[in-house]
């Protein structure tokens, strides 16, 4: 068992100028935030409007802000790594520091950027699309967000307190065991993922139930927008995949903290079981993050082609097929572990099969655009950029799935290029498309186009400049996770090009961010609620949607419900007589999700340093929050008709 004693120089990470820089900026930013909030007397506003909210729209916005911040932090990590690799024998980062950076980069990008970004889009769009007033369990939704938030905080804290984890985002034992990895970094990794994982599972359940149970009358499953289908598939995957990660991490934590031997080299443990379990979660996870992106592309492509999506039923079928098959492919991440030819052949085949439904979707998007009146708006640009990108990512995936060939590609820069192509070209492009598409619905104004275009082109071209050379480097034998390389390997030019591409992407991100700031002041207001001439129900509402979303729950008669309503209105078909307004039953805000998650954070922080008293205090507070909720009967209230009328009138509606 690791030594429990600690001293200050252990506790605060010292001796590295980058980290001192981070210390200073964290302190400065925190002071600035506190000062601004105090000066403008915004503490009450922050608490009432945001920290205690159970409104899916606001929770979605908070997820999105967090995801963008984490994209920034992960991006800075990436640029540091690329700088170190720009030239042979660089002396910019030390080996240990490089290890920590690729570990935090990977973990943050998958779990604290991609995950919250998909949750953001789900929260913002799903209830509006299916004609509901909120998700099925709004209070649980708030818990999910704060668990994610405090998990991410715990993870980021490791940078300045105690030291970051450095065993890779996959955190394989035996390296991640306490024999080889004393420091608290690995504990941070395990606990942060565990805490945010609870939130993710709850979100999966929440959206599964929401989509099945909260649809407006007339919206049958086959009338749902494709984004809803994509989120349904993702929720199913979350529900079944995350518990496996929870178990794997818990066993590793027990090894580290209580000296068990599940995955150690000695004492009967088997580290390979961890690898097995990690990828039982890990492969479905890549589809958890990419399916919602597919859903967004389907909405964007249909809207901006002015057509219904081509092959709706085959789109649904391929989503579901991907969701199920992705559960049967996990071993392709460790073909080289040596499980034998029978095993490798089975998983190679199942992996290749998954490319088929993916291909079906690509052809359907193309067919939707074919003969459509395509409007190349910003969200559409990201969708168009995605298609060639993902075609290459999918093709290299199939190359990797050939088990004997994977002995060459595995853990080389070829693999790195493959998964960045699918994760950036698929997930990041998809989420940015969604962000630009739904931004007016979230905030009531559009994002300015010029900055957005600059952002798109720098990011998109930079992407190819950065990652195509990495495929070649992989073929030339450059392995992943090396912090430097000698001259004379023939890698120098390609690495330099790749680094230049990375900085181009960084510039693209800055344009995107600058565009957001610019638009906050000068963005075009969305007064109609339907700036894109949309097809689905969220565009029938004013922007931003009122707290209760729908004053009257719409009745759905077809797919692309809002489009049909607009067509009928044009043809003079009057909407059926409308019901009287009735008081709307809504959940009340609560501060408990925040406090509950904060308590988890305290308990987690205690465990990281083996401070068991703190842990006990944290868990006691968790238990208290749960108990209080069980006896809380005052959880909801009615919005009176007068107030609804007033709100609707303020939007010019009745």
């Amino acid at each position, binding site marked *: 068992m690791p030594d429990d004693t600690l001293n200050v120089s252990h506790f605060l990470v010292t001796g590295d100028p980058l980290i001192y820089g981070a210390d200073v900026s964290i302190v400065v930013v925190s002071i600035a935030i506190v000062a601004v909030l105090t000066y403008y007397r915004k503490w009450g506003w922050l608490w009432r409007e945001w920290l205690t909210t*159970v409104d899916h729209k606001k929770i979605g916005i908070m997820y999105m802000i967090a995801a963008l911040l984490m994209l920034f932090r992960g991006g800075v990590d990436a640029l540091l790594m690329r700088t170190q690799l720009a030239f042979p024998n660089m002396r910019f980062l030390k080996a240990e520091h490089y290890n920590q950076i690729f570990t935090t980069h990977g973990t943050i990008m998958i779990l604290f950027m991609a995950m919250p970004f998909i949750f953001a889009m789900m929260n913002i769009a799903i209830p509006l699309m299916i004609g*509901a*007033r*909120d*998700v*099925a*369990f*709004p*209070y649980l939704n708030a818990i999910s967000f704060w668990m994610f938030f405090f998990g991410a905080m715990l993870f980021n804290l490791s940078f300045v307190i105690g030291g970051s984890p450095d065993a890779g985002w996959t955190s394989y034992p035996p390296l991640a065991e306490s024999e080889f990895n004393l420091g608290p970094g690995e504990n941070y990794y395990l606990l942060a993922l565990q805490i945010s994982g609870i939130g993710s599972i709850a979100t999966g359940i929440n959206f599964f139930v929401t989509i*099945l*149970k*909260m*649809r407006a*009358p*007339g919206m*049958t499953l086959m009338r749902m927008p494709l984004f809803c289908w994509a989120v349904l598939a993702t929720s*199913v995957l979350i*529900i*079944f995949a995350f518990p*496996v990660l929870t178990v794997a991490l818990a066993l590793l934590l027990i090894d580290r903290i209580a000296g068990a031997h599940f995955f150690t080299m000695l004492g009967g443990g*088997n580290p*390979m*079981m961890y690898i*097995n*379990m990690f990828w*039982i979660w890990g492969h479905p996870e890549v589809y958890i993050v990419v399916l919602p992106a597919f859903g967004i592309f389907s909405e964007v492509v249909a809207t901006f082609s002015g057509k219904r999506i081509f092959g709706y039923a085959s789109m649904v079928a391929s989503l579901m097929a991907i969701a*199920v098959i992705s*559960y*049967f492919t*996990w*071993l392709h991440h460790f073909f080289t572990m*040596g*499980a*034998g*030819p*029978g*095993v490798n052949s089975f998983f190679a085949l199942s992996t290749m099969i998954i490319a088929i439904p993916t291909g079906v979707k690509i052809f359907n998007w193309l067919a939707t655009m074919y003969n459509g009146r395509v409007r190349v708006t910003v969200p559409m640009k990201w969708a168009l950029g995605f298609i060639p990108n993902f075609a290459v990512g999918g093709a290299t995936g199939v190359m990797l799935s050939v088990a004997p060939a994977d002995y060459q590609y595995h853990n080389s820069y070829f693999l790195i290029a493959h998964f960045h192509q699918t994760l950036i070209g698929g997930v990041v492009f998809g989420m940015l498309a969604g962000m630009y598409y739904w931004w007016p619905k979230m905030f009531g104004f559009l994002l300015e186009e010029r900055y957005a275009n600059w952002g798109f082109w720098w990011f998109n071209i930079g992407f190819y400049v950065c990652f195509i050379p990495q495929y070649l480097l992989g073929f030339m034998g450059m392995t992943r996770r090396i912090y430097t390389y000698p001259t004379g390997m023939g890698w120098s030019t390609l690495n330099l090009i790749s680094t230049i591409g990375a900085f181009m992407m960084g510039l693209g991100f800055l344009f995107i961010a600058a565009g957001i700031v610019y638009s906050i002041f000068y963005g075009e207001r969305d007064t109609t609620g339907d700036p894109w001439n949309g097809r689905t129900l969220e565009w029938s509402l004013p922007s931003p949607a009122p707290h209760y979303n729908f004053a009257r*729950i719409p009745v759905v008669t077809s797919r692309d419900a809002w489009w049909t309503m607009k067509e009928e209105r044009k043809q003079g078909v009057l909407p059926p007589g409308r019901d009287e307004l009735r008081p709307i*039953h*809504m*959940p009340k805000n609560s501060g408990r999700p925040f406090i509950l998650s904060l308590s988890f954070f305290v308990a987690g922080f205690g465990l990281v340093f083996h401070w068991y008293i703190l842990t006990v205090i944290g868990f006691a507070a968790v238990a208290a929050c749960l108990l209080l909720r069980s006896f809380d*009967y005052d*959880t*909801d209230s009615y919005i009176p008709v007068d107030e609804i009328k007033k709100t609707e009138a303020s939007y010019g509606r009745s």
Partner: protein
Amino acid sequence: MSMMEEKVPGHTGRSEGGNWPWMHIIGFVISILLTLIALRLVLAHAMGPAGLFVTIMVLAVLQILVQLFFFMHILEGGGPRWHLWMLTLGFIFVFTIIAGSIWIMTFGAESY
């Protein structure tokens, strides 16, 4: 398909108050017991590897049943039977995970 007129977010409708949740308590005790038995058997090396393996599997299946009947109220509820679909899918996945893991972790014990 029955589609309720008014769907209230987060409102689950509480069951009649006052009833002591006996089912939950019994289920909780049984599930803890099943776990403790498994732990005890392993710690005490009570049987050979094959025996332990089979016993733990049996305990695990019992555990699933306890969860389904005592906590998830598998027999209750109206409307479309989504839970049956999910349950079937869940069983397929659980089977895949366990059978797959066993197969993988034999490491070429199969003949070439």
